[in-house]
């Protein structure tokens, strides 16, 4: 890393084709995700909401993913910890707050689903469910549609390492491999699936599975968002060039309990968690921007204030917003206008 102002060397983000503005934007989005996530935890602890699930320390790589994609054309299939990812795709804190409070205006599900179950057709974020890994074949299907229609769209789907042991992972990857579809499979390997450490989920490396499907598998350090950006961007380029899928395993760590319903001290130690919390790449990325001369203390102060205001406002709005009316609670089991008349 270099001193502020020194520009003798090309900066990493510049070398990756990221403008200074975009690099800064990445940082802001990471921080927004972090603060939103923290607020979610607080709200649950305060008894304002029933449940929160956290992506803390996974956000830098999530945001990097989003920044590597084409928001106009691509398809996004995030999983429940992906606040950083969906915020980088255009979802707002207000949207997320409405979801946390399960309010009618929530664009994800009108407060029908749990928080973390994202979906917005406008943002090309595909509606998700709770049974893990079902989204993997969906991503393959979206990529198949893109290929059939000749559209420049890539589908990117995320899931945990525990979830990668479901049959749907295998079937979805293999199908995409056969048909060389434009899809990126991203495993956010945070080394726990609720209480179960990686070693109890699998004895192999997730990234190595790609070999059996005939496409590249890459492991990347989740604490290096610029490297994540690079790898995802390359995968996207390959996909667009018709070179097929890529499996990316992002190595990270779940520093919170699985969710607010979980007590992780029943199955791991505080020391282990603290060790990993210490590797948080958010301050590291901030430092990188500072050293690149792109970020200052003043900017930081302002950012924190802005974020705080935004979250407060969203929080307040969402808390006051109405639930979906019970008149509407059972609507949309089927289309209200049947296609038969078409």
């Amino acid at each position: 890393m270099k001193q502020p102002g020194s520009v003798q060397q090309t900066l990493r983000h510049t070398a990756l084709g990221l403008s200074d503005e975009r690099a800064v934007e990445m940082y802001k989005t990471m921080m927004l995700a972090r603060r939103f996530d923290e607020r979610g935890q607080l709200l649950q602890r305060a008894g304002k909401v029933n449940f929160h699930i956290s992506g803390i320390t996974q956000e830098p790589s999530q945001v990097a993913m989003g920044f590597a994609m084409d928001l106009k054309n691509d398809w996004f299939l995030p999983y429940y910890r992906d606040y950083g990812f969906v915020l980088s795709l255009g979802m707002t804190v207000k949207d997320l707050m409405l979801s946390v409070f399960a309010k009618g205006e929530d664009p994800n599900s009108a407060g029908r689903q749990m928080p973390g179950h994202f979906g917005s057709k406008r943002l090309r974020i595909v509606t998700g469910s709770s049974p893990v890994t079902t989204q993997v074949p969906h991503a393959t299907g979206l990529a198949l549609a893109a290929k059939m229609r000749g559209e420049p769209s890539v589908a990117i789907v995320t899931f945990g390492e525990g979830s990668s042991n479901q049959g749907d992972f295998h079937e979805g990857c293999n199908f995409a491999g056969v048909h060389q579809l434009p899809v990126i499979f991203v495993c956010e390997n945070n080394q726990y699936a609720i209480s179960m450490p990686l070693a109890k989920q699998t004895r192999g490396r997730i990234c190595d599975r790609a070999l059996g499907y005939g496409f590249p598998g890459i492991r990347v350090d989740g604490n290096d968002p610029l490297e994540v950006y690079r790898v995802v961007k390359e995968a996207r380029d390959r996909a667009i060039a018709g070179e097929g899928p890529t499996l990316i395993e992002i190595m990270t760590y779940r520093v919170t309990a699985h969710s607010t319903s979980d007590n992780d001290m029943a199955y791991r130690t505080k020391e282990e968690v603290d060790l990993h919390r210490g590797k948080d790449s958010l301050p590291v990325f901030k430092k990188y921007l500072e050293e690149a001369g792109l970020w200052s203390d003043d900017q930081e102060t302002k950012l924190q204030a802005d974020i705080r205001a935004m979250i407060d406002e969203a929080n307040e709005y969402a808390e006051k917003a109405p639930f979906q009316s019970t008149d509407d609670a059972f609507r949309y089991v089927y289309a209200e206008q049947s296609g038969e008349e078409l």
Partner: protein
Amino acid sequence: MPVIEYIDAIRLAMKEEMERDNDVFVLGEDVGLKGGVFGTTKGLQLQFGEQRALDAPLAESAIAGVAIGAAMAGMKPIAEMQYSDFMFPATNQIISEAAKIRYRSNNDWDCPIVIRAPIGGGVFGGLYHSQCPESVFFGTPGLKIVAPATAYDAKGLLKAAIRDPDPVIFFENKKCYRLISDEVPDEDYIVPIGKANVMREGSDITVIGYSMPLHFAMQAAEDLSQEHGIEAHILDLRTIQPLDREGILEAVSKTGKVLIIHEDNKTGGIGAEVAAIIAEELLYDLDAPIRRLCGPDVPAMPINPPGEKHFLLNKEKVKAAMLELARY
């Protein structure tokens, strides 16, 4: 009007819909060059290319799941399950995903897929090539389920299913494929989902069913009419979800005596719901207990010929039940 086979009606429905709409495509095991193990997709790959008659790896959860993904992107996939016995690996995708996509997203997303799966026995297929899995998917809101008995309905319901904005399971009966032929117009038409059909008018007893066993009832009805002057009123449900409540109640009202028939095993089958609807709405119009004649409550039919015959409904069994009911 040309008389065509049930299987051709299915094939033609797909062909015509694929001609009509570029977003329609079919995927499944062996649907390409081979044209499907029964021949339902024969010629489609030749006409529409490899992508629109897409051979999928041997993995039903992916066949359903990929179809769901493509449907969410705006395509109109027809996912073929080689036998309905082999659709169970796709249950999670069908029940947790297809059925709930519209509801969970508050109408933001939809999932217009068709899942075709051949049901029924009588082809010496043994335990795993003969099953009727209707009861597994029946009762899952968000799914529509159709099960035609005639070539006319097969074509019209499949077209309706393909055009339907929601997921439709299309249970085609493999025994009907080449056994059942009837008049099918050349012109485009659909059979609306959710409407039962009176196959025969009668005033003595009502028979309600769907798919292959209705043909036994029709034959038995002719016999009973000639031999005993008993006139059966026969209702083809056609759509088994959502059920045509009005159609059912009207048909029962006609005679006050009802026999429900299906090949799926009795307990927990569609017939239970039909009986429950009648018991709920028309109890005082009944002149006899509600009877069900269905597959026995065993895991599936044996392949050995006497065992298979013992399991299956046929004209004689249905006739005996109809006669008994008429005489009640």
